[in-house]
């Protein structure tokens, strides 16, 4: 069981103009744990993150429960949510240039959340901002604090966004594709920094990405999302080593570009992600799945085999010593 201070999501449903895009997902993020959430575009990953943060756009509604410190965040008023956001739960966005205010010095942007949530004086907040800039390993913290976002590189801006997110020691850090816009060497530095800081602060991390290797490098647990549902959940290393859900296996095969079939072609997932509301009934993956049959017309439950914590929502899960191709029908 998770400690009280973690984040518990129960039966979260997110509807876009009445069409469910996230269909009742539940998971627990223990204090200090690091969880990856992966899936293709259009699978509901980002909507899940925005729902946790209470940042859903107009016309998109969330129901269910998001429990943090004994409170359901979905029940809070806008005003109450403002006190939680940035303080107890904070977010790192994909594109730092749009997350930062171009007209404000970065030091003031970090200080802003300290003044708001901690009631610090202008001077104390400014001093703390310089310390935070140093913590995210930016050079010359005093001078950097007085710079504007356009004077920093992409990697430096993302460090500033991370400093803002960590300013108030949040219990939960949600990172939505934090390194997708960065070069590989900068990405590696940024991942290393996030890893260190999250460990030192004892915060929980929810890392959302479509890049499987990024998850493998800093997360312990993994949620795989498809069609607004969680299709597989377990320990990162075991899920990648021997995925049970055919979707996870397909993602893995198309990520590992070395693995090729007989004519040296890459393994792919047939078809594409359906549009919102166009996913098939029953198992959401059945129109693309090589193992689908009549049983898949009913919704599979996210269950673990006896004696295991690895849950998969599939009627015909892949057993560990069996490859995907040996499944039922081929597409």
């Amino acid at each position, binding site marked *: 069981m998770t400690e009280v201070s973690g984040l518990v999501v129960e039966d979260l449903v997110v509807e876009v103009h009445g069409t469910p895009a996230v269909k009742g997902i539940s998971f627990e993020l223990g204090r200090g744990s690091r969880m990856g959430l992966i899936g293709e575009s259009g699978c509901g990953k980002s909507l899940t993150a925005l729902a946790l943060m209470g940042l859903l756009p107009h016309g998109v509604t969330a129901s269910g429960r998001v429990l943090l410190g004994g409170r359901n965040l979905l029940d809070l008023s806008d005003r109450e949510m403002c006190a939680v956001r940035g303080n107890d739960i904070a977010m790192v966005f994909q594109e730092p240039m749009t997350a930062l205010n171009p007209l404000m010095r970065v030091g003031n942007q970090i200080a802003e959340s300290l003044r708001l949530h901690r009631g610090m004086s202008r001077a104390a907040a400014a001093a703390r901002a310089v310390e935070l800039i140093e913590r995210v390993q930016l050079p010359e913290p005093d001078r950097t604090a007085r710079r504007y976002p356009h004077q920093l590189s992409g990697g430096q801006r993302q460090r500033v966004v991370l400093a803002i997110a960590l300013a108030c020691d949040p219990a939960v850090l949600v990172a939505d594709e934090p390194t997708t816009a960065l070069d590989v060497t900068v990405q590696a*530095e940024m991942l290393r920094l996030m890893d260190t800081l999250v460990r030192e602060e004892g915060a929980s991390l929810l890392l959302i990405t*479509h890049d499987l290797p990024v998850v493998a490098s800093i997360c312990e647990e993994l949620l795989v999302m498809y069609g607004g549902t969680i299709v597989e959940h377990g320990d990162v290393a075991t899920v990648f080593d021997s995925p049970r859900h055919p979707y996870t296996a397909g993602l893995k095969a198309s990520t590992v570009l070395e693995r090729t079939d007989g004519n040296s072609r*890459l393994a792919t997932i047939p078809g594409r992600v359906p549009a919102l509301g166009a996913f098939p009934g029953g198992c959401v993956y059945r129109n693309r799945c090589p193992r689908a049959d009549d049983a898949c017309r009913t919704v599979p439950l996210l269950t673990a085999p006896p004696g295991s914590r690895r849950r998969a929502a599939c009627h015909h899960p892949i057993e560990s010593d069996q490859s995907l191709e040996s499944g039922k029908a081929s597409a």
Partner: protein
Amino acid sequence: MTTPPLLEAVDVVREYRSPRRSLRTPGQPVRALDGVSLQVHEGETFGIVGESGSGKSTLSRILMALDQPTSGAASYAGQRISGVPERKLGFLRRDVQMVLQDPMSSLNPRMRVADIVAEPMRSLRLPGDHRARVAELMHAVGLPEEAVTRYPHQFSGGQRQRIAIARALAAGPKVVVGDEPVSALDVSVRAQILNLLTDLAEQFRLTLVLVSHDLSVVRYLCDRIAVMNQGRIVETGDTASIYSDPQHPYTQRLLSAVPTLHGDLLDRFNRSST
């Protein structure tokens, strides 16, 4: 190799002026390319890898005569293409085509797919039945024939990239230059497009030049690669030997920064950067 290279760059330098900082002095010149030489032979798949700002896109633009070098020259099939007026570049425009990263900005949103794909044939005044050729291309890139009457926004990202590839093939080129052609796509779609590129390169005997920051994509697709850093080619050679035994420190650092599914990235990266 004894055959002359299809595409060649000799000691190419490209300088840009940075924006001026004062009214009296002009902006400082910045070297985007600093003496780059390379050869791409017919039928090979050549990769140019590097991080943002390394000069890889500038180089690909110079190889297509879309930009002019400050000094040095690029040539195609032995003919100089740098500093040559556009009206004399008809042969190059027919033989070398490009696929860009973001199909949403490289496809005209107001044109139907049929017109987009037929445009190179029209502008190059190629003879033949353009409609039949468009139908043939749609088949080659795996799109339904009725897609020709639709507009780009009615397609998914992967399908749009297929349209961009069909357009690149329309004039019957010998070389296709891809500037980050799969970087904006999801992993599963990326694999589909990479397979398509491999199929088409075989089918139409294309020479592919792939510009990318993604080392795994380049590794899969390319026979030879050039690694760029700060406007220079730091290492060039067979893909297999560069990946198994990188010589230059920058290549070593770049390779060790690529995360893998086995999650040892942080260890490897810490070791290589200290």
